């Protein structure tokens, strides 16, 4: 079966629409996973999923948001998998050359808050990343995650509440 012109057009549209969303999606993955290499791997995985699903996508002008959702879901899966293993400290440079600074890890390690964000449930991490590191509105986040607006608000509320509580606890411990 020959690849027909409409399919070729699909390919071109995929390159155009998903290509334009690629930097944002890669950055989302980077800040969720805190590791450039893993972000690249996750984004590649998301590309594969997106390409397979592409023929079924109708509203392609919103493909960027749709692709963000795929990336977020891939990252959430990876974050869940991590829970059964080790937690890599943000300042863990063991085995890396001094020049191989990971930009995402470096950004997240500038503040203790970065480490605390990574202790949140993955759903909350995604909302925090989209809200503060992608600078999206709550409505935009709801669209990207395909969840009700109330769910986004709820996840953000609990994320902030948890982070505040942990920060206050640390402050109190330092004061003692």
């Amino acid at each position, binding site marked *: *079966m020959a690849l027909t012109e409409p*399919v*070729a057009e699909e*390919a*071109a549209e995929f390159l155009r629409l998903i290509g334009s969303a*690629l930097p944002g999606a*890669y950055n989302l993955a*980077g800040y969720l996973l805190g590791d450039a290499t893993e972000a690249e791997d996750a984004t590649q995985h998301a*590309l594969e999923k997106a390409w397979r699903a592409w023929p079924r996508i109708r509203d392609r002008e919103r493909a960027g948001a749709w692709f963000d959702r795929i990336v977020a879901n891939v990252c959430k899966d990876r974050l869940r998998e991590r829970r059964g293993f080790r937690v890599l400290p943000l300042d863990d440079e063991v085995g890396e050359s001094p020049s191989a600074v990971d930009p995402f890890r470096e950004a997240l390690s500038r*503040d203790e808050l970065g480490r605390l964000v990574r202790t949140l449930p993955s759903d909350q991490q995604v909302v925090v990343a989209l809200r503060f590191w992608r600078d999206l509105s709550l409505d935009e986040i709801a669209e990207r995650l395909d969840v009700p607006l109330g769910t986004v608000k709820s996840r953000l509320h609990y994320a902030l509440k948890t982070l505040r509580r942990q920060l206050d606890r640390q402050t109190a411990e330092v004061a003692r």
Partner: protein
Amino acid sequence: MSTREDPELEDRLRRMGPGPEREAPASLYKYMNELARGTERRVAGVTVSRVRPVRRGSFGFRMAGAALGFAAVLLVVFAATGLILGTTGPRPGAVGPPTTALPGPTSAAPSPTPAVVATPESSAGASPAATLTAAGFTTSGAASAWSGFTSTPLRSDSPMLANPDRAGSGVSQVLAWRGGYVATGSVTVFGRTMPSFGLWTSPDGETWTAVTSVHAAAVMVSVAPVGLIAIGMNPNSTERATTAQSVWTSADGVTWHDAGTPNLAGSLVSIAGTTSGLVATVDTSAPSADNAARPFVIEYSTDGVNWASESIDAGLASAQAGYGLPPHVQTNDGHFYLMGTPGPATSSTGFELTASVAPGDEMWLSNDGKTWTKSSGGYSMAADFIDFGRDGMLLNTNSTGIPGGTGLAHSTDGGKTWHDDTNFGPLGPYVCQGECASGPDGAIGSNGTVFVAVKNGGARAWLSYDGHTWTSISWSGGDAVGSGYGESGGFVVMPRGVLVGGVYAAAR
């Protein structure tokens, strides 16, 4: 719940954020292209084969099927998102490594209306000839007997506009080759650069196809002994001398091969070639060096990968530093034109050019890219770049007294001698009060065959083949002056029309 339920914490989270968005690795774009254009892909369990030829290019520019299969869609992409083109050598102002930072403002979706598609009037009867000269730099059929223009405003967010806020936006380089056209540069879609779409080909100057196998944030293209060569750059912020560069070659304009990493002495500033060889001007300065301290070298290659420094005629003026233009090279009709200011010969680089300044700015001519003869000059300001026409050449010069000031000179003997044109052809000088930059009251450019002049504010245009004798032609539609030409500086004479500021004017 308020979106600012904990302002201190939220601000702290934002400060941790990424700031400028990081570009996605080239490997991801490559993988995406492989997915979409692989030899096989599986959709709903059905294996489908590669795109097969739909039609064949008719102008000797062999556009094989895979590329043409995408043409219809990518034409819209191209038209809506812009392309990068120049005449026969990249203009210095447009070809330096673009900022790597992804564009600031996120623009709206591009216009669905193809802006660069010539009108039926312009395309009728304008079939390019398939003639290939020995130099391979003809623009046959690019323009002939244009009687006027019909302009169409571009959307304000069109990446075809040269907008400094959008990395790689705007049109800067067009190359005619074997009766077809090659366009280079990165493209902005939705405010994001699209490295995969940095190279375009067209058999007729109307329908454009992205070469998705070339991956780079910015691309320069040139004719070369092998056929065509594209050098892609992935600039790394201010680290000019460490810019990552890759070479792709093509014998037919359709299939491009990754030829590896060029051994250039630094960051590519300009490149031009013929069927016999390639010449490049290269910035060897250390990261974050300023203009006054930027050393440049001239290098020669036959394959685009292996480069050796050139020794240009020495014994010229000593190096000077200061405000100026990076040296650059252009070609036309098999001849090389090199502009810059000579510096002291060194044992390591052979010959070094510093940032161009006037007086002392020079032009050299060569037929082979290795033996150079100095032009007799005749222009009074620093040589910037040349516009080539069928019967003459126009040299755009640059004032060092007031940054931004420009002048014009014409030559009808192949660049051996020049004559200042203080009236800027039919345009006249721009009149301003007080200390301000001099320049034409409009814009002048060429597509290799014709020169076009467009007047500021008057919706008037002129045509010339030698840059000296001008014929008034009509201009209908929107006025170019209202399009932000002065701010964006965009003026490119395309194969089938002109891009001026915020409008595309199709020729008829």
